[in-house]
């Protein structure tokens, strides 16, 4: 395999960045779409699971072609697409209002900050260990060169992820402050307190996989957790997984922890004064953050790109027929499937349970999650000492 020149490797990295951005901007609208549809089915809504044009556009074409089969649930997945299109158009077309008394620069920079912080985390996420694919030799300039499964193979990847993710808080706090309005201020204060509190148990719960895998590199961690431990490490780390997921809900401001934007209390929380695409950035950032949290959870606790649990990969592989051998190998697609399952969980929870009160949110973090996370860390250390 030829070694890339420095310029070639920069080009490859840029291509990787592009792929990740494409991934993000495909997954996020699909999540929004799925949120409409899953909630629509959970809540028996009449619109979001049915709306589709009968005459014009893509849905019209599909309806004309398949109106008979469209009643079969599997074939009616496109139903609801106009809602998604309208959603995106609304974000783009709405007037961008700048409040008179807002701090203009900070008001402008806040949505960008939370968006950037959310996307940049993906730099350290490894979708698949080793080589993702090799450019075919006819490809100009970078032909024959391998592309690895993650953008940056940082040996302290987890620190990078946690560090950058916490920058996202600034976006929310600054948005709340810069709006110069009372509800956003309350939302910003809430989010500052909440996200800082939840980062503690979140980090501690992620320390357990670090202890178990003796690494801070995302790819190595997920590989060791997936292969070396029973059931992707989910069995010894079930407590850690639940704590992590809870904190993940809080960090991404989703129900039951959506304090910063609790719409029935604070109107829209920190983004009350935002409209148009600036609001769209917060919206996107929230969904990208959800994807990030899901990616970390599936990487550390759900076996990442490995499909087979129980440490069976090595055992089963020799017996698999050749055409099924991909089954035992890591694939980015398995990783993405797990992310999608966790994203579904987000929506599922949103459709089921009410919202905590602010003080209760804080007491959950400090009184229950942190001690439990510490206990879990102790467990992981014991497993590390005596079992692995």
């Amino acid at each position: 395999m030829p070694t890339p020149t420095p310029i070639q490797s920069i080009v490859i990295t840029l291509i990787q960045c592009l792929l990740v951005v494409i991934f993000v901007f495909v997954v996020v609208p699909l999540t929004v779409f799925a949120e409409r549809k899953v909630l629509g089915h959970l809540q028996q809504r009449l619109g979001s699971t049915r709306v589709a044009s009968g005459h014009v556009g893509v849905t019209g074409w599909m309806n004309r072609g398949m109106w008979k089969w469209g009643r079969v649930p599997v074939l009616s997945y496109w139903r609801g697409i106009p809602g998604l299109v309208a959603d995106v158009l609304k974000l783009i077309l709405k007037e961008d209002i700048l409040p008179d008394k807002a701090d203009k620069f900070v008001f402008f920079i806040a949505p960008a900050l939370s968006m950037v912080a959310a996307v940049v985390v993906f730099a350290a996420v490894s979708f698949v260990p080793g080589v993702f694919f090799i450019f075919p030799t006819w490809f100009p300039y970078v032909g024959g060169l391998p592309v690895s499964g993650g953008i940056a193979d940082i040996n302290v990847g987890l620190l990078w992820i946690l560090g950058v993710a916490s920058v996202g808080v600034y976006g929310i706090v600054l948005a709340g402050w810069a709006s110069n309005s009372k509800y956003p201020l309350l939302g910003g204060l809430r989010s500052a307190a909440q996200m800082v509190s939840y980062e503690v148990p979140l980090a501690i719960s992620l320390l357990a996989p670090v202890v178990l895998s003796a690494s801070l590199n995302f790819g190595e961690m997920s590989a060791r957790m997936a292969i070396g431990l029973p059931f992707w490490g989910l069995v010894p780390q079930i407590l850690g997984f639940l704590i992590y997921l809870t904190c993940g809900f809080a960090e991404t401001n989703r129900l039951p922890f959506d304090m910063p934007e609790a719409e029935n209390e604070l109107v829209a929380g920190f983004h009350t004064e935002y409209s148009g695409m600036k609001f769209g950035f917060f919206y996107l950032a929230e969904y990208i953050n959800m994807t990030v949290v899901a990616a970390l959870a599936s990487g550390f606790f759900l076996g990442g790109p490995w499909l087979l649990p129980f440490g069976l990969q090595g055992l089963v592989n020799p017996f698999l027929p050749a055409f099924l051998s991909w089954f035992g190998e890591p694939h980015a697609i398995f990783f993405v499937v797990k992310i999608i399952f966790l994203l579904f969980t987000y929506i599922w929870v949103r459709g089921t349970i009410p919202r905590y009160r602010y003080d209760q949110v804080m007491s959950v973090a400090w009184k229950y999650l942190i001690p439990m996370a510490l206990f879990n860390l102790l467990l992981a250390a014991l497993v590390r000492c005596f079992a692995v």
Partner: protein
Amino acid sequence: MFKNEEMEINLGPQHPSTHGVLRVKLRLDGETITHCRPVIGYLHRGVEKICENQTFFQGQVWTDRMDYCSAVANNLGWAEANEKLFGITVPRRAQYIRTLLNEFNRLASHLIWLATHALDIGAMTVFLYAFREREDILDMNEAFCGSRLTTTAFRIGGLREDLPPGFEKLVKKFLAKFPTCIEEYENLLSENRIWKKRTIGVAKLSAEDAIAMGVTGPVLRAAGVPYDIRKAFPYAAYAEMDFEVPTRTEADTYARYLVRMAEMRQSARIIQQCMDGMPEGPVMAKLPKIMRAEVNEVYHATEAPKGEIGYYLVGEKGSGNPYRFHVRAPGFINLQSLPKMAEGGLIADIVAAIGTLDIVLGEIDR
């Protein structure tokens, strides 16, 4: 170096959880409410004064538009107050149909309360489930009187028309599925840890305070006072109905939730009894073409879903319209207790308190 200052904030008049155009002036210490004053009047139309310039028949249309979530209950109060004023006896069948529709209305109103209250606390799914069942009730309203929300269901002296054909089937279908629907809501909420944390011990109002402020309805019953006008001073056909008045003693938001859920079950029972014991006969009493009042005054109270709705009417000799008309609106009186409930709590609690009071601004501002 650090200044500790209270923040003054307006909850409303445009706010997702003030149920219309209620404005609450809050003073906050952090997130704790130190001072709370409701400001009302944004929906004032002068209903009482308008009714004084209309005939007795026309006035009913305005009662729909007070508490638009329980229009039928308002209609019933107005019709009965007028019947009291003129000394009209309503046929028994009309009484039964009135009771039936009134209980359906109680269900619809309680479902709206459940929907919005749950949504305020963040349980979005219950909101849509409750609206699904309410839709069936509105369909029945439509079948009976042609309109869904502002029903003008009754007439002074009885009903405009008998029940439409096929109404019984609608009711049967509804009663067959409604108990499972209530169970569905309760499965989502009653034992939900978060729901309990958000409602138990929140927005307390003791029986003494409630009585001192004239609070009625489920809020009073959740404080342990079994005062229900349907039992205390029976009207329509309630004297012949067998039902219980659910009470709780905790006097908090959760108790009010339980009381209203139990009330929904009782309403379904009353509806069943109305259907079973529905007498035959005319539905309208004989009335003169133009009603001319004597010098007379009445106060007639009925149990609306939100509490005691009282109509005070003064007749003038020979006049076709009331000399004075006043409504004792349950929401208006109940809203007084909001500062008592909310002060000392958090912002999230005042949202729960507004939800649990089940206010409709159309009736408060009139």
